[in-house]
């Protein structure tokens, strides 16, 4: 909302405004209250009218150099001073410096008798006198109706109220008039809201025993303004109004990576971690180590010398530090160096909006690089409200380039519980922690459900929380899915056995082969020897044959010679 409003062009002849010094309120009113005109601040009892009005005056005196007058019709000046001292306001000092006048108008109905016509001229005289004393530019009347409680004549009251607003305008002071809420209208007399130029309604609603303060600009003559109900907070550091960002998707994005703090987990992301400024959801069942993952993430952020703001809703900071020590990290040194800040509160301490407002204020003050909310499932309420709250928180972080790390407790082993489903669309990265029950044991398994803008592992990975950190174990997928724990170990052993027996078989066959080869070779040698024997026999015979032929020829020749002599 602020972005959208702030980016609007400045109105051509814009109304002069007086800053309240309450950042969120000035953002919602686009600069402050109408200068020189009366503003009505209405609401039921105990919704913070007086404190807000006093903050307006004190900020004027201390930051904008504008003196103020506080005319109280209810609280005595001493009580007022005491009540706002808790906000760190030094009223007595401001009064002594002539920057503030407090005038308590005391009306005792029991002391008063009415006889005939009258008007409230002395109020105007007193106010004028107080304004002139310090040259006041800001005036608060708190609560004007208390004055009128002693009088019954409605016609006179209405006329005088109207005259008072006119008179304030003529004096040119920026006035805040507080009013109690009436039946069916904003104020008891129903006049103030018409004669004021700006009406701010404060509300203190209780829902499920949890109170949320809200503020709404009902009207603002001559100026646009935020129209929503904005949560606001009153605590030791004053009044903070949270200008709700209505999903301004114009934030700058970063391609820079920010490690998860668990090296093994980094490898599951194509980028080697999360994108800086993205929102990460870590959902998981009870005891799956969500806080340990958060702790490692915080540890890695702080180790790099960046600031990390850790909102813990289930554990105290000391408890987290102790538990993380057993998980192998020392968060205390980051706290000591000022890089890590814990903000712990029970979720039921205030309503969602108040938590959001508080977180907004803390983020603005601490300016962290990463924010951890552990866990978001601790927030109870209507799902749509939780969704809206987280949406705004995610937007606040994104606008500032802060990496937001949310954890969420899943209730069923179904990885997407109701709460997760509601917020999953807000998240850029979603890691699910679950446990797999098999063979009488539970083993922790994680997987990356989604990670926008980067490739990521689709594997289910078993992990162990060890004293040296979180270790992911190489995945083993058996015929019946991923095996974990001792089943995985058993399967691994079985595989080892099988491999061993397979190798033994191979060896035996090798030996058989060798043996047969030797046999065959021996047989070949025998055959060859036989063949050779035969060959040599044949050669001998051939020799004998040729010898006989020669003898025969020689004999025949010799015979021929003998016969030739006789022929």
């Amino acid at each position, binding site marked *: 909302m602020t972005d959208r409003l702030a980016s609007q062009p400045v109105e051509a002849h814009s109304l002069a405004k007086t800053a309240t010094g309450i950042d969120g309120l000035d953002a919602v009113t686009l600069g402050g209250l109408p200068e020189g005109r009366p503003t009505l601040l209405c609401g039921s009892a105990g919704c913070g009218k007086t404190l807000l009005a006093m903050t307006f005056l004190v900020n004027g005196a201390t930051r904008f150099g504008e003196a103020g007058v506080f005319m109280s019709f209810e609280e005595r000046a001493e009580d007022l001073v005491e009540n706002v001292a808790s906000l760190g306001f030094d009223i007595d000092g401001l009064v002594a410096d002539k920057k503030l006048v407090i005038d308590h108008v005391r009306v005792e109905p029991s002391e008063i008798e*009415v006889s*005939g016509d009258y008007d409230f001229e*002395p*109020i105007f005289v*007193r106010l004028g*006198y107080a304004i002139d004393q310090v040259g006041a530019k800001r005036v608060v009347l708190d609560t004007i109706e208390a004055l009128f409680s002693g009088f019954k004549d409605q016609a006179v009251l209405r006329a005088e109220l109207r005259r008072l607003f006119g008179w304030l305008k003529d004096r040119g002071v920026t006035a805040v008039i507080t009013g109690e809420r009436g039946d069916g209208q904003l104020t008891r007399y129903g006049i103030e809201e018409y004669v004021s130029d700006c009406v701010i309604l404060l509300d203190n609603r209780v829902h499920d025993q949890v109170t949320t303060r809200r503020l709404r600009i009902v009207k603002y003559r001559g100026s646009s303004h935020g129209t929503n109900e904005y949560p606001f907070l009153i605590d030791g550091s004053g009044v903070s109004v949270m200008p709700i960002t209505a999903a301004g998707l114009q934030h700058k994005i970063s391609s820079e990576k920010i490690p998860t703090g668990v090296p093994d987990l980094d490898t599951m992301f194509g980028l080697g971690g999360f994108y800086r400024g993205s929102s990460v959801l870590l959902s998981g069942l009870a005891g799956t180590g969500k806080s340990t993952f958060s702790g490692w993430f915080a540890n890695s952020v702080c180790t790099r010398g960046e600031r990390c703001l850790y909102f813990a809703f289930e554990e105290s900071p000391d408890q987290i530090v102790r538990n993380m020590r057993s998980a192998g990290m020392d968060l205390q040194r980051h706290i000591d160096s000022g890089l890590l800040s814990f903000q712990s509160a029970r979720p039921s301490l205030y309503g969602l909006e108040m938590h959001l407002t508080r977180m907004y204020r803390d983020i603005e003050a601490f300016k962290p690089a990463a924010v951890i909310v552990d866990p978001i499932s601790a927030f109870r309420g209507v799902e749509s409200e939780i969704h809206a709250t987280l949406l705004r928180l995610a937007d606040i972080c994104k606008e500032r380039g802060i990496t937001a790390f949310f954890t969420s407790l899943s209730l069923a082993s179904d990885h997407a519980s109701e709460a997760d489903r509601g917020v999953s669309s807000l998240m850029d990265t979603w890691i699910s922690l679950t446990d797999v029950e098999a063979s009488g044991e539970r083993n922790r398994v994680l997987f990356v459900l989604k990670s926008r803008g980067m490739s990521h592992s689709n594997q289910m990975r078993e992990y162990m929380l060890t004293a040296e950190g979180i270790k992911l174990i190489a995945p083993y997928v058996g015929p019946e899915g991923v095996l974990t724990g001792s089943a995985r170990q058993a399967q691994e052993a079985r595989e080892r056995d099988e491999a061993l027996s397979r190798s033994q078989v191979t060896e035996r066959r090798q030996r058989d082969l060798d043996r047969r080869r030797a046999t065959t070779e021996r047989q070949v040698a025998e055959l060859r020897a036989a063949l050779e024997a035969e060959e040599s026999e044949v050669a001998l015979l051939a020799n004998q044959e040729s010898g006989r032929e020669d003898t025969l020829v020689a004999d025949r020749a010799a015979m021929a010679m003998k016969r030739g002599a006789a022929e």
Partner: protein
Amino acid sequence: MSWPEPPAPETYVLRLFVAGATLRSQRAISHLRHICNEHLPGRFDLEVVDVYTNPEATLEYQIVATPTLVKVRPEPPRKIIGDLSDHGRVMRGLNITAGGGISEAVQ
């Protein structure tokens, strides 16, 4: 045996706050003078204060409306707001019990 003498009636210290010399202021002043002269002859100390010229006095006496008649003494302090046209109401407010007889205004 005689009853002790009643204490001397106390002097009434009265302050009438008005806003300027309006008709209403004048009316209030004349009504008050009439009542005092009739019921408190010689034992009243009346001062008319104009809030415009003496704004600090409004703080001291916590004046919120004009005209306002403040009975400073005798105790208890009392404020009567309006132009004092209802004499009976004014006298009840001042706790005057027919010091000079029953006035016609009481009826």
